């Protein structure tokens, strides 16, 4: 479903150019869930944004559903690929009601029975009709993220790009949102590309994982290897250890990779 080959993304010019993503390649089959993990600044979010055509790639190929992603994609691509952002406090327009937020994508793509769709979608993400005409500031973080998920799914996409969808939420809400995403994926047969810095979350959500460091993929593993802790690259092992919890020994043993 998603094929990325030799992807490069950079910002800035000349000597101050930052190579955010360097020679990244991976393939996500239809209906699969693929994880991109790495610390802050490892280029995982930038890679995701390049697939969503939010930032232009400098080199390489991105294919979704067998077709190369254009710099200015058409509506069909937009309907097929949707995204959920990290910060639910910044990804909802502060002056739009939930109703307006969900109505807009339907209008853009000329979908029928908008009212029915909105009601149905809200129910599906676990928000009742009482939430329909609220403003984002009247919602909690978890409720906001549910609205963001509803906004992404109301177009009935086949690919969902998830940019750390739970890292801005507190732990109990994280589990709820992850369960919701898992259920929705099973019900709709969605393809997930899941970006996170938390290996435990990715291990729960994804069948296959790529570990990124400084803009490169250093290791690819499947869920079984991850659970067994059978990772080859020292950075990936360190990341795995870090995700299992914090202790003094571990903190002292951490190494910086350049």
């Amino acid at each position: 479903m998603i094929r990325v080959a030799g992807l490069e993304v950079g910002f800035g010019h000349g000597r101050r150019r930052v190579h955010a993503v360097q020679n990244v390649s991976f393939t996500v089959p239809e209906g699969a869930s693929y994880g991109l993990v790495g610390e802050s600044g490892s280029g995982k979010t930038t890679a995701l944004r390049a697939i969503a055509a939010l930032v232009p790639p400098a080199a390489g190929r991105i294919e979704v559903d067998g077709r190369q992603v254009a710099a200015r994609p058409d509506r069909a691509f937009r309907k097929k690929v949707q995204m959920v952002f990290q910060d639910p406090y910044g990804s909802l327009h502060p002056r739009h009601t939930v109703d307006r937020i969900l109505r807009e994508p339907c209008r853009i793509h000329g979908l029928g029975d908008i009212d029915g769709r909105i009601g149905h979608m809200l129910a599906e993400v676990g928000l009742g009709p009482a939430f329909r005409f609220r403003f984002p500031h009247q919602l909690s973080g978890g409720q906001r993220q549910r609205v963001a998920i509803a906004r992404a799914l109301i177009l009935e996409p086949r690919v969902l790009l998830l940019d750390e969808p739970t890292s801005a939420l507190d732990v109990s809400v994280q589990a709820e949102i992850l369960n919701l995403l898992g259920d929705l994926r099973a019900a709709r047969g969605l393809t997930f590309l899941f970006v996170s810095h938390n290996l435990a979350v990715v291990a729960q959500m994804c069948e296959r994982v790529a570990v990124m460091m400084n803009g490169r993929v250093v290791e690819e593993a499947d869920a079984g290897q991850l659970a067994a802790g059978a990772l080859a690259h020292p950075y990936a092992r360190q990341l795995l250890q870090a995700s299992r919890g914090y202790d003094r020994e571990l903190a002292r043993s951490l190494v910086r990779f350049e």
Partner: protein
Amino acid sequence: MTGLRAWLLAEAPRSSFQARAGRAWLAWLALRRNPLALVGLAIVACLVLVALLAPWLATHSPYDQNLEARLLPPSPAHWLGTDELGRDLYSRLVWGSRITLGIVGLVAVIVGPLGLVVGTLAGYAGGWTDAVLMRLTDVFLAFPRLILALAFVAALGPGIENAVIAIAITAWPPYARIARAETITIRGSDFIAAAVVQGASPLRIIRGHVVPLCLSSLIVRLTLDMAGIILTAAGLGFLGLGAQPPMPEWGAMISTGRQYVLDYWWVAAMPGLAIAAVSLGFNLLGDGLRDVLDPRQR
């Protein structure tokens, strides 16, 4: 009353209209806590009422001359006295409020949208569009406002319509600047990225997502600028380039009263007081609105 309050403050509104009304009600509650802003609102409301009810409020015709009653001091017959042609100053002030309100309204209607369009376009498009539009703005900003307005009126010919056009042409650049600055901060936010991912066109994003967030700071700026607009209009009238006699425009009234200011102070002072009061009213209201509408406080 309690039923309406509950409807406005409902936790779970049942329609978009109810949600928006509730929001407006909260803004009004915030404005009500600021007594100075209420004074400003009262003055502006007074101006609007006087302009609407001018035919009933005026005691005399604003144009009828009576040379036997010229330059009379304030008295029960002529509440604010008479001018050099024996016209009743109070009635002229009342009718003049229509002209002032008209100027302010027209300038606002031209300047707000113009600045908004130029600023949001420049800010959202960036690159060449931004450079060209902003240099154009700089050209207008480089001249002192009254001087530029004078030049335009001189070129267009004196008259109240041309004064309005000249003021509008000189007043829009700061609005474009504000709108551009706001747009640039909004452009990078996730909700704009989300709209892009949904396939929204740049026009839709500017109209539906960027403009609503720029609007409040523009409204605040506009109310604060009203005083300046009134003064510029009065200044043009004073210089004989705005309203033409016998129109009861407040600036022009000060201009004619100037010759008699030492012996007959009220001829120039009354319209001067009116200008001062209305300018102050708009300023106070603008200050209050800034506290209520400032997006950083929400």
